[in-house]
């Protein structure tokens, strides 16, 4: 579908939000509180922020929840009775004010969950979300979307992309049929597109490395001393993986109470020592540098090779969340020069 451009006035944007809410849509939008911004379910319009650089947590929770109930089971003498989760009950959800990097993050997840095996749980949630993007007009030194092939006004993954113009009104780009349906239902709020383009209203994020070069270098860098030298300070927590919009590793655990139980899919992180440990006690990734290497290789070598997608969208969340300053951008810049 060809991208259609329209104008939506600041006041009309509020009306659009309220209209979507009034129709019974659940909305997930960024709200700032105590200096931190996080997406929140059904905030009032006044609470929604348009000025944040990045939320601490990503949006992956909406399609890949931190805990997903896969099945329920019951055991008795005659055997095991399994109840499937009714995925038709998944509610539709409007994601509001999503930065272009986050919108592209869904594609990275899709390349994993919809790869050789089509994951129903992921897919039924993905079908139900509508993404209303918001171009970035601010960035910080952890942002590097332009280095991974994205940009602050990118439309990838969005159904509608809004860009704040100099007047304070918004340029709306309608990208998909889903986006078009939203606009059609509220056509009175949209006006003819202005002549002002979005390009002048975007954050300036300079390209700092070439990801193709990084991928190329990684192919021969498995045994390089770089990994040990640069990860001695890594303490092996999962903060980076849990805030990452593209990290998709999970662990399946059964939780039982008496004869009933459920099978859960929980977020996991390759940074944890327990991630690879075998029952025998042997751990193929015995030390933290090997786990850190895995994290980078997975995102910049294995995923481009197998899934035809990078496992990183340059949002910089991991660098901001890391308690010991394992800055991924800094390391990628060094890896490009390796």
């Amino acid at each position, binding site marked *: 579908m060809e991208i259609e451009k329209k104008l939506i006035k600041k006041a009309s944007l509020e009306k659009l939000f309220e209209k979507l809410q009034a129709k019974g849509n659940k909305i997930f939008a960024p709200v700032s509180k105590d200096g931190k911004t996080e997406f929140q379910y059904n905030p009032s319009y006044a609470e929604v922020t348009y000025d944040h650089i990045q939320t601490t947590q990503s949006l992956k929770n909406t399609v890949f929840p931190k*805990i997903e109930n896969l099945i329920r089971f019951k055991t008795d003498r005659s055997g095991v009775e399994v109840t499937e989760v009714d*995925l038709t009950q998944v509610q539709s959800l409007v994601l509001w004010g999503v930065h272009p990097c986050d919108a592209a993050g869904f594609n990275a997840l899709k390349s994993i969950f919809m790869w050789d095996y089509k994951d129903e749980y992921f897919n039924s949630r993905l079908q139900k979300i509508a993404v209303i993007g918001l171009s970035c007009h601010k960035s910080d030194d952890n942002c590097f979307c332009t280095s991974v092939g994205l940009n602050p006004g990118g439309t990838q993954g969005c159904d509608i992309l809004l860009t704040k113009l100099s007047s304070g009104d918004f340029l709306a780009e309608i990208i998909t049929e889903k986006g078009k349906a939203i606009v059609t239902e509220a056509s009175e709020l949209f006006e003819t597109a202005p002549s002002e383009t979005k390009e002048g209203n975007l954050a300036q994020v300079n390209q700092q490395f070439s990801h193709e070069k990084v991928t190329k270098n990684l192919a021969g860098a498995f045994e390089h001393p770089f990994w040990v030298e640069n990860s001695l300070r890594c303490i092996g927590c999962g903060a980076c993986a849990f805030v990452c919009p593209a990290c998709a590793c999970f662990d399946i655990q059964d939780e039982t109470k008496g004869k009933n139980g459920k099978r859960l899919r929980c977020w996991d992180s390759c940074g944890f020592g327990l991630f690879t440990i075998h029952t025998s006690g042997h751990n193929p990734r015995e030390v933290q540098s090997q786990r850190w290497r895995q994290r980078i290789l997975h995102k910049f070598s294995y995923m481009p090779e197998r899934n035809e997608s990078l496992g990183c969208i340059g949002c910089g969340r991991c660098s901001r969340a890391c308690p010991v300053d394992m800055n991924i951008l800094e390391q990628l810049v060094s890896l490009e020069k390796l």
Partner: protein
Amino acid sequence: MSEFEPKIVAFVCNWCTYAGADLTGTSRIKYAANVKIIRFPCTGRIDFMLLMKAFQNGADGIIVSGCHPNDCHYSSGNFHAKRRWMVFRELLDYMGVDIERITFSWVSAAEGARWAEIVNTTTDKLRKLGPYTNYQNLVKSGIEEEL
């Protein structure tokens, strides 16, 4: 009075309180049927998380009981347990768990009547306090994850 009957889990040691409770029975002393006794080798063996397991599984109150000081079958298990409870009570209180719902006691193998009294007073207290809905809601809030 209300119809509410509290569920009480008692964690007791094998050598003193369990034998004491046995004596209560053989002495034909009646006591509240609200209590479910779980026998341990020693109070020193009772991990603090077991208490939370009891609350998690719907207990409204808990009794922890073992040998009187200096009477421990393993000589010091109850002293270790005492320290653990001293510390754990402070943590529970700080995190907002109602420590009134947990009774600690020493009951020897000869104190059958005392065991009945402890169970009865604890049951009465919990009848007044009502069900531990706070914790039960906390547990419930996690069971049905939103789709």
